[in-house]
């Protein structure tokens, strides 16, 4: 296991640094190629998102100069970059990759986007041949771990964006949103987004009021809604169950007396005001009325962050899953490390066995089929018995740090030639066979 990872993320580096390291999608294949051509690197890939830029490599000897690569590639001086870099090796690199894919290292823990981004980065690197054996295994496992974390913990379950928090709150008030009416006051991007979320959850119709009537019409058309003249706002607002307001007005446009009017006309059916304007559009006095629920931008943000706190609890569970997965992956990978040696040991002894049988066959004369079977069984039995201990030792050593030494000793003792990766069509196929047999 010679994984090495280097990078920056939202915690280690400010936006200005991350901006300079960001690699566009179109340049990603070339960067991967450059990486694999860099001394000491066998396989490599790059994850570049708005919150992180990371290079993950499988190296020849575990000590590739990834920092040097970054300095050269981005034309950055060490003093500019190095203070923001983090670097992980071997097991720690595996853990980091698992955490990133499972969205535990994200700015908003549990957000689902990162997994898609990692998958894209993996596909790109794979397409240019920069990801083959080891990294392939690492990322296949990382995707499985991410799935496990998502299904076994609630880390990704609560919604986080302000718009979806607004929807969730609306549901706490109204239960189902089917048939509810939404009123947008002040046509802004954010209120449009919130309205879109509400409509997606079943709200029936939308009214839009804006100081500029034309903009109200434009937005209303987007939702098949109805534009309302701003001066008719108070007369029509009670038709809405949910009001999203984001005007640039310097004073509150909804005051207590308006709330009282609305409630009287609505026979006290509750109303939900989502006030995303700064300064606020809804006076705090209005929120004191029974049946009027007001959430301003700070309340919404607080709701978002309390979700984040919930996720943190779940994240602890997820960390435990990841820790056990790292162990499993390491064990599996190191077993795979000794597999070529086991295969060539088996091949080696089998060749000897066959040669010896052929050699004595002349002296034994004509054998009956039963004798043939007996000789086969005898020789095979001896070989298996002889091989049993070395193979068990190799497999158990694979899980320890002494693996390399043991593999080396066995190879020397039996004078084994383990083929390299490039000419490895034959051993690779056998490797799988052994893998499934053991």
């Amino acid at each position, binding site marked *: 296991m010679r994984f090495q990872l280097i990078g920056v993320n939202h915690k280690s580096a400010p936006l200005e640094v991350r901006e300079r390291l960001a690699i566009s999608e179109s340049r990603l294949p070339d960067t991967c190629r450059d990486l694999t051509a860099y001394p000491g690197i066998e396989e490599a890939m790059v994850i570049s998102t708005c919150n992180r830029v990371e290079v993950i490599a499988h190296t020849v000897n575990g000590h590739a100069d990834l920092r040097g690569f970054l300095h050269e590639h981005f034309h950055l001086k060490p003093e500019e970059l190095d203070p923001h870099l983090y670097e992980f090796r071997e097991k720690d690199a595996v853990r980091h990759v698992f955490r990133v894919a499972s969205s535990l290292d994200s700015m908003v823990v549990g957000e689902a986007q990162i997994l898609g981004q990692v998958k894209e980065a993996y596909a790109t690197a794979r397409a240019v041949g920069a990801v083959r054996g080891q990294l392939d295994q690492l990322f296949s496992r990382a995707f499985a771990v991410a799935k496990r974390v998502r299904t076994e913990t609630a880390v990704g379950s609560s919604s986080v964006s302000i718009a979806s928090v607004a929807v969730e709150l609306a549901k706490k008030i109204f239960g189902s949103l089917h048939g509810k009416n939404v009123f947008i006051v002040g046509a802004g991007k954010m209120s449009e987004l919130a309205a879109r979320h509400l409509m997606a959850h079943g709200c029936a119709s939308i009214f839009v009021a804006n100081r500029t009537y034309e903009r109200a019409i434009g937005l209303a058309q987007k939702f098949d809604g109805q534009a309302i003249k701003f001066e008719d706002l108070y007369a029509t607002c009670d038709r809405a169950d949910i009001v999203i307001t984001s005007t640039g007005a310097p004073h509150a446009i909804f005051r207590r007396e308006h709330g009282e009017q609305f409630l009287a006309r*609505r026979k006290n059916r*509750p109303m939900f005001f989502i006030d995303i304007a700064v300064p606020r559009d809804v006076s705090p006095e209005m929120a004191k009325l029974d049946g009027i629920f007001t959430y301003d931008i700070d309340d919404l943000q607080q709701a978002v962050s309390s979700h984040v706190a919930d996720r943190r609890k779940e994240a602890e569970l997820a960390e435990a899953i990841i820790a056990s997965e790292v162990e499993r992956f390491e064990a599996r990978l190191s077993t795979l490390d000794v597999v070529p040696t086991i295969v060539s040991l088996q091949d080696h002894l089998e060749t000897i066995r066959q040669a010896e049988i052929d050699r004595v066959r002349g002296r034994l004369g004509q054998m009956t089929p039963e004798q043939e079977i007996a000789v086969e069984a005898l020789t095979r039995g001896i070989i298996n018995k002889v091989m049993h201990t070395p193979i068990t030792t190799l497999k158990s050593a694979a899980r320890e740090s002494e693996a390399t030494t043991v593999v080396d000793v066995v190879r020397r003792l039996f004078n084994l030639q383990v083929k390299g990766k490039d000419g490895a069509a034959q051993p690779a196929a056998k490797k799988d066979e052994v893998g499934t047999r053991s």
Partner: protein
Amino acid sequence: MSLLWLRFALGCYFIGLVYAFVALSRTSDLFARIALHAASLGMVFHFVSLVEVFLSGQFVWASVHNGESLLAFISMTFFMVIYAIYKTTSPGVVVFPVVFFLTFVAAIDQQPVLLTVLVQRRGWLIAHIILIFTGYAALVLSFGASLLYLLQERRLKSKKPTSLISFLPALEVIDQIGYRSLLLGFPFMTLGLLTGSVVALTTYGRVNFLDPKILLSVLMWAVYMIMVFTRWNSGWRGRRAAILASFAFVAALAAWAANYFSTMHRFAS
């Protein structure tokens, strides 16, 4: 025997009672399921107990304790119907303690107070008991719903989404449960009082409105009517509705307690 079944039922309802207290401080789906199953099992025992009372030959529902048992059973039925429609166990927070209390009182001993005066119209009496108890059960539920409404309203107004009482259904769902119970209960209560009057008239030839039981029942009915009216007319919810509901509930409790000292209603004069 009926008392034994009732005590089994009481054991099951006890789990519901514990759930009601736990649910106030934390949410547990598992515990809600356990409480639901325990309550269902309790209802089976309870039903057997009621059937035995009915089959015992004497018409003993008119005893206060059996009445309490019947009322508890009807309340549980309401709870289950609501669960079937809204998939929420939260009304249990109010219903379970009330049901437990009623069953507990009923399960203490066999009550000696029986019909001592021959009631002229037996069918009317049965109708009176069932109607009025359905009305009571609906009232208990709408009272419970109005309390839960207040809790949920507070919670939403406090703007702390992770506060303790997170098991509550949406505000409008609670409101619907309360309103539907209210609407359903009112005609039952009205008809129950009317049938009761018919029974009293035929038995005594008059209705003594100064009898505490009757006075309190009429008062309860009046509050009930005000609740239905204000809700229908101006959509009273939340605090005002809860105050009215509490008032009606207290009146109902008082009317119930009057069983113990009313001369007329005990049919013991």
